[in-house]
């Protein structure tokens, strides 16, 4: 049995806090996700924050955009931590699914998040 995964959401501005708050309001979950903002941080500062938040825990890092400082810092962290996986393009649907599926490997959870998050993006017919 692998350790339960931690999720860290890293975004511009207050988006991460808002996403984690929305997950808590919907699920009651309080503790499987950590919110982090790039406000006031360069890449090195964000990498330090990730180190503090994650430690040696197996983890999926969710960032908002497939480029930019949140991704750059997370990808830098990922290079030296094999038990961390990275997902870009975070949305609420993938986080809601993640909090109930935290028992696999980080890589499997990341792929599941991509699938579940992608399924939730659609044009809704009127």
């Amino acid at each position, binding site marked *: 049995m692998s350790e339960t995964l931690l999720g860290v959401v890293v975004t511009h501005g207050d988006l991460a806090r808002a996403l984690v708050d929305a997950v808590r309001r919907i699920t009651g979950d309080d503790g499987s996700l950590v919110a982090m903002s790039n406000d*006031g941080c360069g890449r090195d500062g964000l990498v330090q924050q990730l180190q503090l938040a994650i430690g040696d825990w197996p983890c999926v890092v969710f960032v908002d955009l497939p*480029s*930019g*400082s949140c*991704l*750059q810092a997370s990808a*830098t962290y990922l*290079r030296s931590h094999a038990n961390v996986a990275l997902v870009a393009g975070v949305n609420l649907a993938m986080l809601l699914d993640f909090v109930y599926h935290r028992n696999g490997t980080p890589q499997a959870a990341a792929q599941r998040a991509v699938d579940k998050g992608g399924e939730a993006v659609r044009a809704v017919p009127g």
Partner: protein
Amino acid sequence: MSVILVRVDDRLIHGQVVVAWGRTERVGRIALVDDVIRGSAWEQDLYRLGVPDGVDVVFVSVAEAASAFAEWQENDRRTLVLVGNIETLSRLCATVHIPQVNLGGLHKGAGRTERLPYVFLSDDEERQLHALDERGVRITAQDVPTSLPVPLSDLAC
């Protein structure tokens, strides 16, 4: 001249640079000047992810930037020159005349104090900036094109 902005920003290629400045200033080329990234293929790949279609990016050392600067100035392609720290800026300005510099983002770090929400400087970095100012480099802080430029004299502790 086609070097339309020389910017100091420790996040280098990110949203404010490619979206805000890139679109407003119709940037056609980003020149990222950094000796470490010049030699790091994986970091170059990381920064390329943020470069929109139609914009070229070149990764150069300080020495290479000094050699290429005149060509960038004469070329029609509108070039944004990016450096990640004051030390690199000072080295570049030692070999190339740069009339104006934009401080776009220098974030929290050891020995630095907050001058603006997006500009943190150490005393030594502030001294380097004033030395450049005395040599005729006009230095202002401005994170995005729609904010007001803040002169170096207003960045004192």
